[in-house]
């Protein structure tokens, strides 16, 4: 058995809820601390080491000055894992990517808009190569434990490509459409145990699109359930703005 793998955590534009979920996962799995050596985790510790093999990155890249920091992490780490929807998809930060950037800046900072650096929030794979993704907003703590277990075994974390509806049916949930709600389950990646429909709300798409989503059919279903085009666009843009824009661009 080789020495414990050295792990570091980093955060860019995010709420840090995924790193808190990592802390929470220790409630059930305190033994995790014995299996890896955490050398950097700014939110939880003051010690800071620059020698790490695995980097977990939370948050989206939302300003040019984030880019060299991401490059430096990529240079050091053998494995880079995108942690959560912001790192994976741009997260809710990307909602504003369909809005004029200058208008967004001025709405919040008025005539001081130029004081604070920003650009269109993007997933970190748009800046550096990413080896694995743990999706979700926030990440699912069981999936995080499973991913770490895989990494310790020398494997890459694996996220199955199937729609949320499959998981929701297995849970024997009543479809939220029959309760007058709207759900992105048919086009969203499963793996969260269909947590939102289980608690009575529709899926918001935080884990990202499955490989071959039928967006037009999804729009049709929402339309049939009484949503206007504008409301459908709002639904599809909570977490999926960047992915949908990329699909539109590809035609």
């Amino acid at each position, binding site marked *: 058995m080789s020495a414990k793998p050295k792990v570091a955590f980093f955060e*860019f*534009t*995010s*709420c*840090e*809820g*995924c*790193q*808190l*979920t990592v*802390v*929470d996962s*220790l*409630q*059930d799995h*305190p033994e995790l*601390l014995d299996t890896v050596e*955490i050398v950097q*985790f*700014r*939110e*939880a*510790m*003051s*010690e*800071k080491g620059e020698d790490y093999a695995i980097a977990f990155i939370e948050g989206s890249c*939302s*300003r040019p000055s*984030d880019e060299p920091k991401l490059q430096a992490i990529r240079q050091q780490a053998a494995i880079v894992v995108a942690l959560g929807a912001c790192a994976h998809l741009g*997260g*809710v*930060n990307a*909602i*504003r990517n369909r*809005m004029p950037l200058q*208008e*967004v*800046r001025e*709405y*919040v*900072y*008025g005539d*001081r808009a130029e*004081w*604070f*650096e*920003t650009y269109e929030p993007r997933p970190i794979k748009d800046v550096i190569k990413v080896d694995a993704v743990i999706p979700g*907003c*926030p990440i699912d703590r069981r999936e995080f434990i499973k991913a770490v277990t895989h990494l310790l075994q020398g494997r890459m974390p694996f996220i199955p490509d199937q729609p949320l509806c499959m998981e929701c049916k297995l849970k024997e949930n009543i479809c939220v459409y029959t309760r007058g709600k709207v759900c992105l389950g048919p086009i969203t990646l499963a793996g969260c145990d269909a*947590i*939102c429909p*289980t*608690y*009575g*709300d529709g899926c*918001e798409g935080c884990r990202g699109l499955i490989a071959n989503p039928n967006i037009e059919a999804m729009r049709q279903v929402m339309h049939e359930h009484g949503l206007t085009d504008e*409301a459908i666009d*709002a639904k599809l843009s*909570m977490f999926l703005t960047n992915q949908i824009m990329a699909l539109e661009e590809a035609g």
Partner: protein
Amino acid sequence: MTTKSLKVDVHHLTRVEGHGNIVVDVQNGELKQCELQIVETPRFFEAMLRGRPYSDSSHITSRICGICAVGHATASLRATEKALGVQPSEQTVLLRKLNFHGEILDSHILHAYMLVAPDFLGVGSVIPLAKSAPEVVLRALRMKKLAGDLCKAISGRHTHPIAMTVGGFTHFPTSEELAALRERLVAMRADVDTTVELFSTLPIPDFSRDTEYIALHKPDEYCFIDGVIASTDGGTWPTEDYRRVTNETIVPHSSAKHTANQRESYMVGALARFNVNYDQLHPRAKAAAATLGLKPKNTNPYMNTVAQVVEIVHCVEDAIRLIDQLLARGVVWEEPAPPTRLSGEGVGACDVPRGTLFHNYVIEDGKVIGANCIIPTGQNLANIEADMRKLVPEILDRTQEQITRALEMLVRAYDPCISCSTHLLNVQFV
């Protein structure tokens, strides 16, 4: 008179949420610069809400913060409900309070044990503490797990709650779940008592600076949701008048705005709530305060963590009381209370773990057209800097390392949530 020169430059303060720098420059004994720089990326939540259905707001704004996601969701729901004339049921109010206690407990335990305690126990973080004092860390994890489970039973999870919606809930805990949580809360009293004992032994730095303390207030309960804005300098304001209290200004070294009410700065958070609302604390919490040497009005900002411990006691007791109330009346499945109009303006106010939080929305035909969120850490920034300006000259005889550490501990005591504090703004509603 000292003629010492000193530069402190803490880049990315650790064990806080978000990115902040402490910069202090003393030349020949004179304090030239003393700033808490907020260098987090701006996030623009207010702009992102514009044009979206009102029902999205609580889900989007809960993503402002991973620690106080329930607080943001609750403030957001209250702003929307006031704008649209929604009257939540008594059961909804009880469940929201209970969920809120889960979040206060989770956040305070995280802060007191995992972020602050390592400073006193001679370690750099909770990780070596797990080796040197495993019982302390396991106690913290055990208590935190119960807080998380409480939130999970009500709204699906703590970070980014699911089942909270405008007018009510989309899911309800069963009586069995509530009874099981009650039993665990009662059993948790032993851990809570040990926590009070532990924090009564920590050498809290001796420093004080009188300032204005602001918190939400109700005469008949220790207030976390709704109420009026109250100040230890005197005066109360309806939450709708929050702009008259916060008076935001933009400063160049911070992507979060500064605020001031009746003095140059004010403090919000656990110590402010304790100072404003001591009378409404549960008797067990008052007893804990006595053990911890905390009396209102306390003006030592380092005692904020101690006030959090007092609130841990209060929230455990009040959660038990709320569960008893819910069990006695029975939890029934309810449709959310409907809007009575689709246009209007509302202010939602909550006292979240770090202090008073305001969400203000203007809604037109069911869509948000204007939004303003004022976050506790933003309100504390000017006060933290004022503390640093008083503290630095008092400790100039110490080594640079000791001074840096004292400043880090001061900022950390406020439990700043910097990722929240970076999208404060100035909307001109039309």
